[in-house]
């Protein structure tokens, strides 16, 4: 195209510019784009303040939290759950696996949230700051775990008994 044509029809000229294939990405919803850029701008405004101190440490913590959760915690508990299901299935107890799964998950949830106190890793500071030794947290967690599994066992026993009684009733007496 010569210069004269280009001046006469700039839009045609624009179409001639080669856009690399990678950049030919559809925009998607403009509302969504506007909303997300607004969100990023606000996050950046707070983010520069968040990163003002130990920026590397904070970045590692935020990215690490997401990665640790998605790539370690989720696979770990999913694998444990699948192993439990497989083990129960091998014994034909798949339907009753909840009686182990639920108390185990609840007990581990408490351990996850209160790990610093239960493990005693903040023992010295907690004791000297509050005037109370944190010795009770581990026994409390163990007792709650015992209660969860004990309660579960009771429920299971109850349901097994009920099942037996109904099957007996259905069977005609000899």
């Amino acid at each position, binding site marked *: 195209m010569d210069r004269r044509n280009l001046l006469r029809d700039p839009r045609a000229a624009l179409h001639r510019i080669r856009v690399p294939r990678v950049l030919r990405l559809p*925009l*998607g919803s*403009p509302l969504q784009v506007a909303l997300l850029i607004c969100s990023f701008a606000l996050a950046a405004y707070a983010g520069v303040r968040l990163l003002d101190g130990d920026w590397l440490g904070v970045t590692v913590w935020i990215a690490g939290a997401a990665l640790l959760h998605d790539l370690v915690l989720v696979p770990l508990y999913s694998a444990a759950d699948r192993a439990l299901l497989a083990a129960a299935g091998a014994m034909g107890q798949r339907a009753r696996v909840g009686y182990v799964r639920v108390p185990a998950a609840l007990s581990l*949830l408490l351990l996850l949230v209160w790990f610093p106190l239960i493990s005693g890793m*903040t023992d010295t500071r907690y004791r*000297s700051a509050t005037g109370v030794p944190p010795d009770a947290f581990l026994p409390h967690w163990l007792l709650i775990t015992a209660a969860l599994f004990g309660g579960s066992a009771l429920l299971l026993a109850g349901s097994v008994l009920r099942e037996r009684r109904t099957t007996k009733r259905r069977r005609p007496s000899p």
Partner: protein
Amino acid sequence: MRDSLRLPTSPGLWRSPLRGTRFTSVLGLVLLVGIVVVFVTGLLSYAAYNPDLAPVNDKTPGKGLLGFYLFSWPTDPYWLYRLTQGVHVTLGITLIPVLLAKLWSVVPKLFELPPVRSVAHGLERLSLVLLVGGGLFEFTTGVLNVQLDYLFPGSFYPLHFYGAWVFFAAFFAHAALKVPTALRTVRRMRAGEQADGGEESTPPDPDPPTVSRRGALGFVAGGSLLLFATTAGRSFDGLRGTALLAPHGGAEPGSGPNGFQINKTAAYAGIRTADTAADSWRLTVTGRGGTVRLSHAELDGLARHSADLPIACVEGWSTSDQRWRGVRLRDLAALVGHDGDPPDVLVESLQTHGAFRHAALRANQVADPRSLLALYVNGARLSPDHGYPARIIVPAAPGVLNTKWVARLTFGRP
């Protein structure tokens, strides 16, 4: 093993029949309400410190416009901070199972292919890093801080405050994009519609179910209930024993009038007995009329008043009302020339360290007749751990502004 050759990017790896728009929608709507409440009560907690009053009250002086909403923290109702901060921490802890279940339900989306379908889609996925990373960061720093486990990289206040804004920026965008779908899904579920209408994105190769969706939601609710039941009691003296795993739960540190919860003991704050003894300790009160120095006996000679007020900590625990007895702050102001119009006051403690050994109170707090320089609690002298010989107690103020082991009050210069 059919998983051995599968990558997480293969939809076939994800086999729980629970995953799908319906499960995610219910959890998402619970988090929408819960996180907004936790965010707002968190912002209120920052306002409660009166950070714009004096540099000593502000741990995030570089906040810029993020402090746009600040206001003078009131003294009424006197249990205000006990309520807002109790809700902030207890609700935050209660939401943990919902957050974990929500993240579990959407984890396959992390590995979705193609990674970017459009500009909007790419930005949304980028925003998820801030949403998930920021959310976990906020919950983790909060949970560690209440257990006095200061592992995080820096001071808690700026990390948790600025982190909250980064998280909330991503959260509001995510909510705006997803709430319509979530509401539509839940409305359909309530109407009992079986048809998916193309919106339910269940795994293509699901395992047989081991639990119903209702059962799974019940399990998440059970986890929340368990955390709530073992935490909430730390906000009430009579129920503290039920908070079996939460910090400042379980047993009281002592018995008798001074037996209630202690935030920082005298030993921890570096208070030496010699500094508080009758022959050495003096309270220095300064105002526009000059300076007076009061001994134990002189302070005891001033008009004494009572107030029933709680101690409420930023960590979410609180005590029930204690009966404090001491000298009104406004009477002390009058003593140094501020008669009738008590100004702000800067309170200084004998503490050798601690972020709030100096703290400022606003004029409205000084003027309240229940605001005391307390000398007695529940009919006995203050114990060393509760601030002997004198401590501040102000209605609705966060615990750290109720300075213990007070040595100096400077009126009119916060």
